[in-house]
């Protein structure tokens, strides 16, 4: 039953993700990316992580992608800018990132290779609710949580400083 929902969602997410890369127009890519994020949210719900799924929709699909679209529309790309091209200076960086990504994928495969398909683990009580996520964020993971908050705050201040020096 769960696989019946999982496979269409996963397939749709992968196809939309490919469209993000291969779409000619930037807005089209953005729309596909939103669709992919909604698909991912659906997968989260299948994993009983309702709170995470809703946050995925609110933060990524709802807020960040609106900003993406806003910027794309503001820039109003000309035909020349939308062509597919690889920048010379980015080749090495991209390759390195790709290799790292393969490593991450290998780690995932390694961890899940022995798992039996179609035999979902027993879900603990309250799993994935806002209460449990909040409690574990503020007890077990309080240091990473605070570090991430400071990082976000620094990024925000940085953005304000950069924008302000342009305006003045």
């Amino acid at each position, binding site marked *: 039953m769960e696989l019946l929902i999982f496979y269409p969602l996963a397939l749709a997410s992968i196809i939309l993700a490919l469209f993000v890369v291969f779409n000619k*127009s930037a*807005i*089209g890519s953005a*729309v596909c990316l*939103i669709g992919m994020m909604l698909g991912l949210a659906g997968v989260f719900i299948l994993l009983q992580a*309702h*709170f995470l799924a*809703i*946050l995925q*929709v*609110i933060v990524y*699909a*709802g*807020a960040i*992608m*609106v*900003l993406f*679209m*806003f910027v794309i*529309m*503001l820039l109003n790309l000309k035909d020349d800018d939308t062509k597919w091209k690889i920048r010379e200076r980015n080749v090495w960086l991209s390759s390195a990132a790709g290799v790292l990504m393969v490593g991450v994928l290998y780690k995932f495969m390694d961890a899940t290779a022995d798992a039996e398909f179609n035999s979902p683990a027993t879900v603990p009580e309250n799993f994935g*609710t*806002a209460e449990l996520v909040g409690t574990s964020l503020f007890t077990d993971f309080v240091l990473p949580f605070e570090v991430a908050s400071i990082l976000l705050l620094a990024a925000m201040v940085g953005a304000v400083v950069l924008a302000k020096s342009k305006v003045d």
Partner: protein
Amino acid sequence: MWIDLAITMVKIIFILTITVGFFAPVLTWVERKQSAIMQDRIGANRADIMGFTALGLFHIMADGLKMFTKEDFIPEGANRALHTLSPIIALIPAILTFAVVPFGGVYELWGTQVNLVISDLNVGLLFVFAIASLATYGYVVAGWSSNNNWSLLGSMRTASQMISYEVTMGLTIIGVLMVYGSMRLTDIGAAQETGFWGFILQPFGFLMFFAASIAENKRIPFDAPEAESELVAGYFTEYSGLKFGMFFMAEFIEMVTIGAILTILFFGAWHLPFLTTADLLSMFDFLGDSFANLIVMFIHVGVFFGKVTFFIFVQMVIRWTLPRFRYDQIMKLGWKMLLPLSLLNVVGTGLVILALN
């Protein structure tokens, strides 16, 4: 299993009938008639069937017929697929919100528990918020795909305005969460049966949420995205026929949504003041258990939609009373006034809860 499915189907059909079938068309008439009364005019009164005008109610049918038969126009150079898709993206979230909106409590009818909400999510409040934030795309894509500068300007204003006011909306929701300690909308509704209603516990939260939700719906005084005098019609300038009708409908259904959310969070949901469900049940005790439950259910649904209607009325009065804010005034109000105030509201609510415990 089957009876649950049947009950859910009935609830879905009921909600669709009352929003898309009743509120949306009737509100198009109410808006014209109410504005006419407020401005000392007569208003819509010409459409008639064999001489009967029924206070102009036949204009609803005339409008529908007109929208169905109008030419569906797609401008040259527009992105055809996205141009067609965006009214759908705009309309779906407006209706989808009602999946988690409880329009009554739990009733025991002939041995079956009937919970008057389609899906009782434990993150219901966040779901409403998430769906509201997705609604932005319909308007943004509409403006971009039209290949028209007015539309593009309109949708850029939409994007920035909706992002700005979502922040305030989210923060005021936190105040409500802290007071009632649950994100389940049915819990919040049930807590107001005997406890204080939300607008007493969260007066500032109520006002800010109301303002932010009107801004989210882009109605006057926050209608800079579709300002007629500046942008022709903003993001839906290039839309005609039923596609235009869908944007129109989304706006009216969203008014119903705002009314429903305000009612649940701040105005006692489906409850009458000082009358608990048990009181009502004992009043109709002589009819037998199930019939008493049935009657109380009808009363509660009636009370709920009565309150929703009241809030729609308030929104309409605001729409025909205030002039439009300038775009920079909207941004200033959102970021420099409502955002700090809603943050203060969260801190203040926290302090009061801490002091009372």
